[in-house]
């Protein structure tokens, strides 16, 4: 039996309301929303927003296989500190998440850590090799709702068609990493003037857009539902906007870093800025933000990609792409968009919970009878990202040393505080 907890003095933000009230939680459920509540544990929320815990559609937790970079436990802790109560675990583990055994292992490790719901995604193709379909029905019966080969796109159009047809029958969603591999061989950064100066092989926008276009048309043909991972270019946003106008069952996400950092940072020669898809232009950022404002983009997802220090001390061409995201997402989003708080919560919680089909437990209103997966954040608090304080096992955050505005104060997972006053509780 967990202790009762009261969140005091915050502003509750739900879809259709914004009220100042205390919240009392017992046994993992919200039991009272009223003024002047008392309980065993009291969490001060004055000046803070009280809302549903965040849901990340895109976290690389690295376990099994690359525990040197991150474990499910350390990634879960980083998530809790970032206000998350659920993380969709990307399947590019070793072995990859293409079998019940690995899916179960990931889920069990998540439960053992007990800091967030770890929601394993499944591979579209066996071993993410892009050759034959993974046992999607088996995995779907084990509860997997989102399938992706993330890290690579499914290159073969015929196989992707079959995957969508098969997924439609199962009622699951495919999530695509859009990258036509032939166009990005050896690519390090966006193809742009800066890449011309640096003499680095370019990752042209069209490599993403061609696959976005192909998959939109395959969705139109098959009727299956599709989620686009980490869109990064202006034209991708336009393609998705038009597809949504046509009523296609498509959703899309962007990352905090693609909203805040540009290609010119590669001129520092620091591999921390190498990410896939690459950082793009200021013009692309404007288009992505417009996509957030008009609903073309449904979710902000971190693409949290830990790498050990020695991997990021290699040269730009050899260093693996990816950067941390879970602990900094809120601050980066609040500081780099003109979104209302309600829109931010929609993009970080309500919408991704629906896309991951975990909206019975996550992305719920803060109201009586609802599960207590809650985050409490101060939208105005400025804080500096300190390398020493990152909970992630890796330190490849591009925001180290920068000041962000907006910080998680408390996080509750199933009624239990996982973070109090910015400190992880276990």
């Amino acid at each position: 039996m967990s202790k009762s907890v009261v969140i005091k003095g915050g502003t509750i933000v739900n879809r259709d309301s914004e009220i100042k009230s205390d919240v009392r939680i017992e046994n993992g459920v919200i039991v009272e929303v009223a003024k002047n509540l008392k309980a065993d544990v009291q969490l001060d929320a004055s000046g803070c927003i009280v809302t549903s815990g965040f849901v990340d559609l895109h976290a690389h937790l690295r376990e099994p296989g690359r525990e040197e970079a991150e474990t499910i436990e350390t990634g879960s802790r980083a998530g809790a500190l970032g206000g998350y109560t659920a993380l969709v675990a990307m399947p590019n583990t070793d072995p990859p998440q293409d079998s019940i055994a690995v899916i179960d292992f990931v889920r069990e490790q998540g439960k053992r850590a007990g800091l967030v719901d770890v929601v394993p995604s499944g591979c579209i193709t066996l071993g993410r090799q892009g050759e034959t379909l993974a046992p999607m029905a088996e995995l779907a019966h084990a509860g997997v709702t989102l399938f992706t080969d993330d890290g690579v796109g499914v290159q073969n159009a015929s196989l992707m068609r079959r995957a969508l047809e098969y997924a439609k029958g199962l009622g699951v969603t495919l999530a695509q990493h859009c990258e036509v591999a032939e166009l990005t061989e050896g690519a390090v950064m966006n193809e742009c003037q800066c890449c011309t100066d640096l003499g680095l092989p370019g990752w042209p926008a069209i490599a993403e857009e061609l696959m976005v276009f192909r998959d939109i048309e395959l969705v139109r043909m098959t009727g299956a539902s599709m989620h686009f991972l980490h869109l990064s270019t202006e034209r991708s946003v336009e393609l998705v906007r038009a597809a949504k106008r046509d009523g296609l069952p498509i959703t899309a996400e962007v990352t905090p870093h693609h909203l805040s950092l540009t290609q010119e940072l590669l001129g520092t020669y620091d591999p921390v800025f190498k990410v896939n898809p690459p950082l793009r232009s200021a013009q692309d950022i404007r288009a992505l933000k417009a996509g957030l404002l008009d609903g073309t983009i449904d979710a902000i997802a971190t693409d949290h990609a830990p790498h050990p220090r020695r991997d990021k001390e290699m040269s730009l061409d050899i260093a693996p792409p990816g950067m941390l995201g879970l602990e900094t997402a809120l601050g980066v989003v609040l500081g780099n968009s003109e979104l209302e708080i309600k829109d931010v919560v929609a993009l970080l919680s309500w919408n991704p919970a629906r896309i991951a089909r975990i909206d019975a437990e996550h992305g719920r209103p803060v109201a009586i009878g609802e599960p207590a997966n809650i985050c409490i954040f101060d939208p105005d608090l400025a804080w500096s990202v300190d390398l020493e304080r990152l909970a992630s096992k890796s330190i490849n955050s591009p925001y180290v040393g920068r000041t962000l505005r907006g910080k998680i104060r408390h996080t509750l997972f199933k009624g239990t505080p996982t973070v109090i006053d910015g400190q992880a509780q276990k």
Partner: protein
Amino acid sequence: MKHLRSIDELGVDGLVALLQLTDHMAEINQRPVPKVPALRGRTVASLFFEDSTRTRLSFETAAKRLSADTMTFNVSTSSVNKGESLRDTVATITDMGVDAFVVRHKSVGIPWQISQWTKSSIINAGDGAHQHPTQALVDCYTIREATHESRFDGMQITIVGDIKHSRVARSNIQAFSMLGAKVTVVAPPTLLPPDLSHWPVQINHHLDEVIPTSDVLYMLRLQSERMSQGHVPTLREYSEQYGLTQKRVARLKDSAIVMHPGPMNRGVEMQIDPSDVKNSLIHRQVANGVSVRMAVLFELLGSGSSLGGQA
């Protein structure tokens, strides 16, 4: 000046000063005993992660003529994960007491990364397709020597070949422009960077159009793997369009000079023996390599010491 990693970093004043200093070094190299004690007690480490003959030898010769100690760290190009222990390698050599690293690496940006890990000076001897500043200094010095002009105002310099993958082109375009030259790049669009509209260059895809107006014709090496990558259909087609032939040499201005950074691909970009080209400066480029690198080493390491005296 602490490092020499790019022409940008050097700036126009730094460039001109180094070219002037090179005159002194060239004079030393004319002496019966071409050696001075200027850098006695200093240590220069060559860190070559990519094959090189002339650049490495000319740096080592330059260091020795200034009486610096040298050490060489050669890494086989076949070893995998080349970048992996780079930081450890640099730390180890730094611990031995090194004043400057001369670095060549196939990866862009390595000289900048290394300068985060050591207090020693870094000289970029070529990083990927990015920069090769001492080659640009050599080429500027060579043109200066041949034309007796310290500024290149109004000079038409044509660079021909694989601009896209060339660090020599990137450094030279910057350096030639800084000295006032008008630079034209000539290549098929597949061998040009995707967007170079911000570079101070004219673009032409037809070598024959620019031959009669060029004061300097700078030929770049074409690597044969560009065919398999689909940049050019065949070497034969490339050399027909962009190779230096007897016919093209005949259409050059009498005063025009021909350059190549080496190593040459005979039968590809050079369809003619360079010794048959009247104003070929290719051998001067090699000869000047030592003087220029002496100037660079002295500039970076020789503060307070004089160039006078015998070793």
